[in-house]
């Protein structure tokens, strides 16, 4: 056989040796390559261990921010004004949904979600961070929550998120002072970034936009917590590794008395106007209500454009406007302060008398300025000038004082300035002066305008808050306590070192004081205060009828302002001309006369007939009656307050409707 023959001549041992050599060489190669593999793994697992361990951890460990609970807000008696209620929102992580449009359509049918919301979501899809959930529905009803929960398996990527959202149980009653929170928008984010506190807001969705919620945002917000979780490659949380709890925001206790707010709302019902009540002893604001108001809850969940349009509708009487910090001509309510200025400057004494024939003429000028009483008040001294609100007396006084002395003194009482109250919406209003007019209109000051200033008209506007503050300064005989809504903050401190023991720390608000007004003669304070006392207590005086029979000793001053000036910022509306031309009713009061505890300022726009005495004074009377214990609303358990319950259980939209229906 050929093969056998060939094998025979082959040198087997040489071939075996060759093969063995080659095998040995390959084995050396195998050893070298194995060593390379091993040293490479050694490099990874020993030399670069730290680096890869860090990367492995950053793969799997995520720090999830946990939002702190917002501080609650209580009235001075512990009635809850701003609550946090659990709200269920429907969210979606679009990356986890195969066909977002189809899922959305199906889900919307199941839960009855409006087309508007669907479109909003689709729009939001375009500008979002990867794997960040976006909100489809902000407030699911209990029924929607259960419907979704049953069908959740059909909608991967969609989930329900429960979180606390602000709720204002008294709705429109507190909005102008409390304000509201709403979704953090781009501008808020930029601001937080600039302040360097954006990290603290990583999990926070809402921020104070108005009122106290805005002013005390930092205190109410608290400090963010963190949850360290392990996640898989889908970003799904597998387990929690560590948890640093957030520190809740501090609770606020206000100086406001919700019962006085209720009285104010009732007293102003059907009117446009504002009430401010201050405790002159410490500047605490007892009541601050502007009518009509609106429900801040609407903004917490994002107001619909339809509802927002309704708030802007002229027929709704500008509910968004906070009339407590809006300028009104003060009219005769500032006469006591002008009298005080006259006394201090030595232009008048309590005995100084003028003769009022029913009009006033500047020397050498034909034009007559009429008193409100056609036939005049006859002989008028200071007390009578206040009791009867005699215009001629003050034309004369203003003429003699001149605008500069008036505005200098009035600025000390805070007119034309911010009072410094703890909300940002305050207006300075206008304290006219020669410089002001030049700056504003580039015109000279006319003496005739000084006369108008003498009766609280012309350019002069004051906010009800400024007015109440000025009267507080008056009753405090020059001491200035900056008005404020905050009474105390409450904070619960958890001592982690000591078995998580919790201690409640209450910090009282430190009242701010400004340098007092010092008169040349201290007795002048009493002279003017006595005049105001007579105005309310003397039979036939302008404030008498409103406080007849009250159980406390009140003092006050009426005012009726022509509204020509107010019309500046209002559009001409033919159907409303008649009403807009009507006078504004003003009133200021304080009680008890000997040691005042409450100062009230009332402004009511365009009253049908009568002045401040007939329209505004009764509002102040009701507030004071309530304050001094003729309480119509009395309850021991503040949480089961009769009116409180009433408002608390109202549907939010209903209360808004009711509010506008009142107008």
């Amino acid at each position, binding site marked *: 056989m050929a093969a056998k023959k060939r094998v025979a001549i082959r040198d087997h041992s040489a071939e075996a040796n060759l093969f063995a050599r080659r095998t040995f060489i390959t084995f050396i190669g195998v050893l070298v390559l194995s060593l390379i593999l091993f040293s*490479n793994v050694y490099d990874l697992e020993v030399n670069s261990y730290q680096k890869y361990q860090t990367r492995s951890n950053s793969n799997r460990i995520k720090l999830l921010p946990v939002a702190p609970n917002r501080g609650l807000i209580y009235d001075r008696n512990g009635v809850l004004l701003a609550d946090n209620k659990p709200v269920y929102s429907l969210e979606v992580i679009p990356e986890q949904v195969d066909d977002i449009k189809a899922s959305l359509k199906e889900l919307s049918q199941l839960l009855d979600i409006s087309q508007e919301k669907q479109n909003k979501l689709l729009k939001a899809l375009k500008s979002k961070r990867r794997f960040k959930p976006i909100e489809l529905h902000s407030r699911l009803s209990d029924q929607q929550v259960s419907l979704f929960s049953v069908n959740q398996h059909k909608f991967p990527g969609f989930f329900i998120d429960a979180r606390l959202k602000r709720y204002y149980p008294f709705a429109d009653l507190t909005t102008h002072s409390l304000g509201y929170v709403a979704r953090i928008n781009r501008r808020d984010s930029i601001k937080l970034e600039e302040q360097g506190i954006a990290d603290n807001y990583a999990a926070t969705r809402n921020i104070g936009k108005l009122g106290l919620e805005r002013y005390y945002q930092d205190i109410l917000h608290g400090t963010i917590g963190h949850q360290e979780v392990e996640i898989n490659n889908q970003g799904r949380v597998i387990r929690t590794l560590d948890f640093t709890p957030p520190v809740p925001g501090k609770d606020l206790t206000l100086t406001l008395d919700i019962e006085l707010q209720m009285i104010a709302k009732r007293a102003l019902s059907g009117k446009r106007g504002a009430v401010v009540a201050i405790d002159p002893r410490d500047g605490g604001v007892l009541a601050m209500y502007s009518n009509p108001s609106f429900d801040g809850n609407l903004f917490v969940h994002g107001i619909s454009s339809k509802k927002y349009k309704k708030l802007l509708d002229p027929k709704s009487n500008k509910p968004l406007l906070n009339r407590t910090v809006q300028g009104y001509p003060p009219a005769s309510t500032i006469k006591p302060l002008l009298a005080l200025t006259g006394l201090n400057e030595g232009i008048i004494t309590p005995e100084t008398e003028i003769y009022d024939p029913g009009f006033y003429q500047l020397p050498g000028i034909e034009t007559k300025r009429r008193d409100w009483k056609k036939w005049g008040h006859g002989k008028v001294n200071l007390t009578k000038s206040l009791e009867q609100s005699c215009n001629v007396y003050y034309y004369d006084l203003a003429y003699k004082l001149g605008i500069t002395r008036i505005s200098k003194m009035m600025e000390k009482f805070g007119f034309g300035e911010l009072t410094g109250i703890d909300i940002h919406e305050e207006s300075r209003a206008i304290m006219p002066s020669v410089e002001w007019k030049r700056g504003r209109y580039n015109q000279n000051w006319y003496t005739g305008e000084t006369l108008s200033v003498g009766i609280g008209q012309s350019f002069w506007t004051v906010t009800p808050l400024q007015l109440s503050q000025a009267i507080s300064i008056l009753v405090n005989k020059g001491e200035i306590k900056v008005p404020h809504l905050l009474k105390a903050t409450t904070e619960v401190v958890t001592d982690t070192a000591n078995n998580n023991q919790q201690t409640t720390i209450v910090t009282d608000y430190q009242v701010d004081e400004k340098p007092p007004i010092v008169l040349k003669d201290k007795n002048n304070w009493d002279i003017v205060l006595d005049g105001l006392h007579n105005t309310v207590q003397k039979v036939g005086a302008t404030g008498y009828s409103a406080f007849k029979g009250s159980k406390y000793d009140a003092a006050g001053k009426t005012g009726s302002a022509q509204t020509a000036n107010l019309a500046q910022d209002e559009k001409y509306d033919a159907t409303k001309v008649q009403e807009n031309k009507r006078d504004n009713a003003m009133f200021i009061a304080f009680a008890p006369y000997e040691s005042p505890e409450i100062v009230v300022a009332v402004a009511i726009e365009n009253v049908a007939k009568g002045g401040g005495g007939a329209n505004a004074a009764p509002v102040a009377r009701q507030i004071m009656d309530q304050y001094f214990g003729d309480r119509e609303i009395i309850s021991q358990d503040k949480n089961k307050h009769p009116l409180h319950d009433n408002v608390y259980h109202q549907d939010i939209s209903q209360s808004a409707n009711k509010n506008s229906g009142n107008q």
Partner: protein
Amino acid sequence: MRSTGHDQQKQRTLWQRMHIDLPLLAGILVLMTLGLFVVYSAGGQESAMLIRHAKRVGVALFVMFIVAQIPPLSYRKWAVPVFVLGLLLLTAVLLFGHVGKGAQRWLDLGFTKFQPSEIMKLVVPIMIAWYVSQYDLPTKISKIIIAFILVLLPTLLIARQPDLGTSLLIASSGIFVIFLAGASWKLIGTCAALASAFAPILWMFLMKPYQKQRVLTFLNPEQDPLGSGYHIIQSKIAIGSGGIQGKGWLQGTQSQLEFLPERHTDFIFAVFSEEFGLVGVGLLLTVYLAIVMRGLWIAVNAQHAFTKLLAGSLTLTFFVYVFVNIGMVSGLLPVVGVPLPLVSYGGTSMVTLMAGFGMLMAISTHRRFHA
């Protein structure tokens, strides 16, 4: 040597009568056992997957046992017809093959799907060993050229599928035969020079975009960490974070939390090193080396040129599996689809490998009766 053989012949054990090489089997069983543990961990501790893997292990062991019973020199009779049939099947795959994972590798026979390239992993070394062993060693240059062509045909057909990993394994199985048969160093040097000259041509004209991408990714995986570089970065993180001791069985976060892709198949080495650390890797490499050493020992002691060459080639190809897989998973080599032999989940390649080990055992145990 002869006397030792004589002693062995005298005391033929039960294992030898069953044509089982015990040291080889021991190494294989150690790897398979490790494989079962790692597949269970990498597969998300899913028992169904573990059972499927165990079944395949059983089938593979059975195939090895059957193959071991066939006298190795009888392969020579089948070498040519099976090789030709293999080439025809590879051509058929290219023409009518079933597309899976972007490549045509499967031939649908109606009752089963069949991957001809797997068969070629065994047929090519048999064919080349048969061809080369007919002539005197060292092989003459003209025969070497023919042998080269015989290697190149199936390699290119498989590379066209495209299946870079398998074509690489098949090419090396043939080339090992040529090398072991004593190709001159001058020729080897020339070929190496030609190959490096050929590389740019390969890059420009023959490589598919996805293959080029793999090479680019290999050169700089951080360039596209979430895209093409993701596999290799996550794999290196898994290995590196294992440290010396490893995170412990079932404790590997990269694999358990699914950051690591292909974790129970091609990237199972990353799972292993993450959970068992450098210590585990050292042990694993030692077992692989032991198997290679035993395989080469069998080759050196084989009594016929054909069986020597075949045994050497099978053993070295086995090592190529190990080197390419670990090399790519730990970032030394570009990613090509090569499993970690006897550990990775996946039936076909394990059955082929075990058939190869069956041949090694046959060579080791049948030699007495052919001398």
